[in-house]
């Protein structure tokens, strides 16, 4: 069962790599923000899976919960900031 959880985490990490391309390459800054948000949501699943791999679920769950809170607050704050500043269309790279 641990091998199955390890394989699932590896597939999720591969999809994180696909999202990282959008973060680095994304033409608009909102693309980068949604890429980071998606990576954070995947990281929560990976952290809980890691808890089951190492058989220490009760420690990793609290880390996952704090990660969910920080991910939500970060996405909300960044989108509010760029909504007010009006620099959504700036391309930086």
């Amino acid at each position, binding site marked *: 069962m641990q091998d199955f959880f390890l394989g699932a985490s590896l597939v999720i990490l591969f999809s994180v790599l696909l999202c990282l391309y959008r973060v680095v390459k994304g033409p608009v800054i909102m693309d980068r923000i949604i890429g980071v948000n998606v990576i954070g949501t995947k990281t929560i*699943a990976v952290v*809980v899976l890691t808890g089951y791999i190492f058989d220490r679920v009760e420690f990793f769950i609290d880390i996952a919960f704090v990660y969910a809170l920080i991910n939500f607050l970060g996405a909300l704050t960044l989108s509010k900031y760029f909504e007010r500043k*009006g620099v959504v269309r700036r391309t930086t790279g």
Partner: protein
Amino acid sequence: MTALAVVFVCAGVFFLLMGAIGLLRFPDFYTRMHAAGKSDTLGSLLVLTGLASYGGLDLPSVKILFIALFIFVTSPTATHAMARAAFKNKMPLWTKEEN
């Protein structure tokens, strides 16, 4: 319980992978958000529910279900805030003629 956990985690990983491919392949910001927002919520929800059912009914499973409920509320909220920020600043919509 183990078979249920395997089915749920496999379905969740499938949805997460499809969401990443959609984020990579779609042509416009709004369509990318359409791919990322919904499938990402459903995928992480399925993975967390499967892991909670694998552990049985104890305190970590209840905590995992609480994280799943939190994601179910906050992920659409964050997606909505980002889409509104883009739409208020008049980001152009993708049309077939331009591209």
